[in-house]
């Protein structure tokens, strides 16, 4: 049986770990609420934007933007992968990377090479380790992200598309289902798939000022940026939810460990008292 004092120090150290995990759980819970609110706040823009894009895509413009027309042969694809900066959030990143790797594998079976753009430190580390070519990355975004933080990375991949280096762009991020469930999701960003709404199929067009090309260029870039932004914000909500759950179970585990150790400690203490008593009784009998 181990030393009572040793066990006591062990209990103390687990208790302090438990304190940390509890604090982290509470911090994550409050950050999750904020992230969820921000997630809600991004919706109107994306909805309005997709409405406008829907109209524009169905309007009879003489100018067809390259983001709206699929290319016949696809040789290279770009993939924007949104991960977290920090760990301690359960299997969130691993599940996402698993999804990304299976997508990359599928594409490579069709002889399509993949370049990635990573958002978040974890993705950068992962893709570096497995040897996928990364053409742009951004990390250390913090909990409050702003669109300006990653427009550069988006521009890199959009430019590569416009120049014909890549022919398709995907976005992979975690989708916030609820606090307990986050699932990785892959969507095709470019070429855009406009929503098929019958009522939009009317024969009218906008007046474009200054001209269709400049306005469409601008609009589509903003749309793609907003989709990525939404993905990043949603991913942050996922990160916080996953961390909250992970820290909750860590605190529970610590509690169980402490209970078990407490039992061992009590036994050890009891044993030493019994032994001392036996020694005293033995000593008295000898005298």
């Amino acid at each position, binding site marked *: 049986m181990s030393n009572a004092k040793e066990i006591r120090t062990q209990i103390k150290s687990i208790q302090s770990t438990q304190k940390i995990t509890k604090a982290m759980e509470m911090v994550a819970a409050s950050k999750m609420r904020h992230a969820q609110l*921000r997630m809600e*706040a*991004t919706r*109107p*823009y*994306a909805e*309005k*934007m997709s*409405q*406008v894009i829907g*109209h*524009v895509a169905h309007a009879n413009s003489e100018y067809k933007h390259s983001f709206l027309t699929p290319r016949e042969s696809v040789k290279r694809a770009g993939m924007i992968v949104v991960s977290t900066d920090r760990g301690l959030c*359960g*299997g969130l990143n*691993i*599940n996402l990377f*698993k999804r990304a*790797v299976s997508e*990359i*594998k599928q594409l*490579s079976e069709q002889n399509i090479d993949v370049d990635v*753009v*990573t958002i978040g430190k974890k993705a*950068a580390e992962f893709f*570096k380790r*497995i*040897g*996928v*070519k*990364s*053409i*742009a*990355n*951004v*990390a250390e975004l913090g909990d409050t992200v*702003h*669109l*300006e933080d*990653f*427009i*550069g990375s988006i*521009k*890199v991949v959009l*430019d590569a598309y416009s120049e014909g280096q890549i022919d398709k762009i995907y976005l992979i991020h975690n989708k916030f289902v609820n606090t307990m469930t986050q699932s990785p999701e892959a969507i095709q960003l470019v070429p855009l798939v406009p929503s098929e709404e019958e009522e939009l199929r009317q024969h009218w067009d*906008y*007046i*474009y*000022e*200054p001209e269709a090309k*400049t*306005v469409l260029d*601008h*609009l589509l870039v*903003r749309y793609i*940026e*907003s989709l990525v*932004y939404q993905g990043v914000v949603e991913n942050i909500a996922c990160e916080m939810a996953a961390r909250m759950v992970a820290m909750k*179970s860590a605190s529970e*585990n610590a509690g*169980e460990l402490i209970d078990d150790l407490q039992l061992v400690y009590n036994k050890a203490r009891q044993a030493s008292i019994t032994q001392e008593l036996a020694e005293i009784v033995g000593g008295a009998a000898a005298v």
Partner: protein
Amino acid sequence: MHVDVVSAEKQVYSGPVTMLVAPAEMGEVGIAPRHAPLVTRIKPGEIRVTLSSGEEQSFFVSGGILEVQKSVVTILADTAIRAADIDEAEAIAAKERAEEALREQKDSIDFTQVQRELAEAAARLSLIQKIKKSK
């Protein structure tokens, strides 16, 4: 006429107005109800709306897009002032970070190795969950 002013980060304004004035790229435009469908870029500046009560409200936008349909006007505002050269600088920075990371990297993807690593990590996770449940 219904007006929505939204930016990527939040909804700025949503409600009925009788008149809207915005700094379009080709000059300031005033939009009254039943304006012809129009899409135009807007410059950084002030957007003024007149409510049905005659009250005026104004917002500052740092650029964006104005879309006019029969009875709905949508302003998709940018969150910050954007300029081509700033975007370009950001793009170059993002590329450089990636190239830096690339320098010490392997040539091609070894799918079996990657999948093994991922499977290992997933197995570890499910094991932890099992241990938790059996307790």
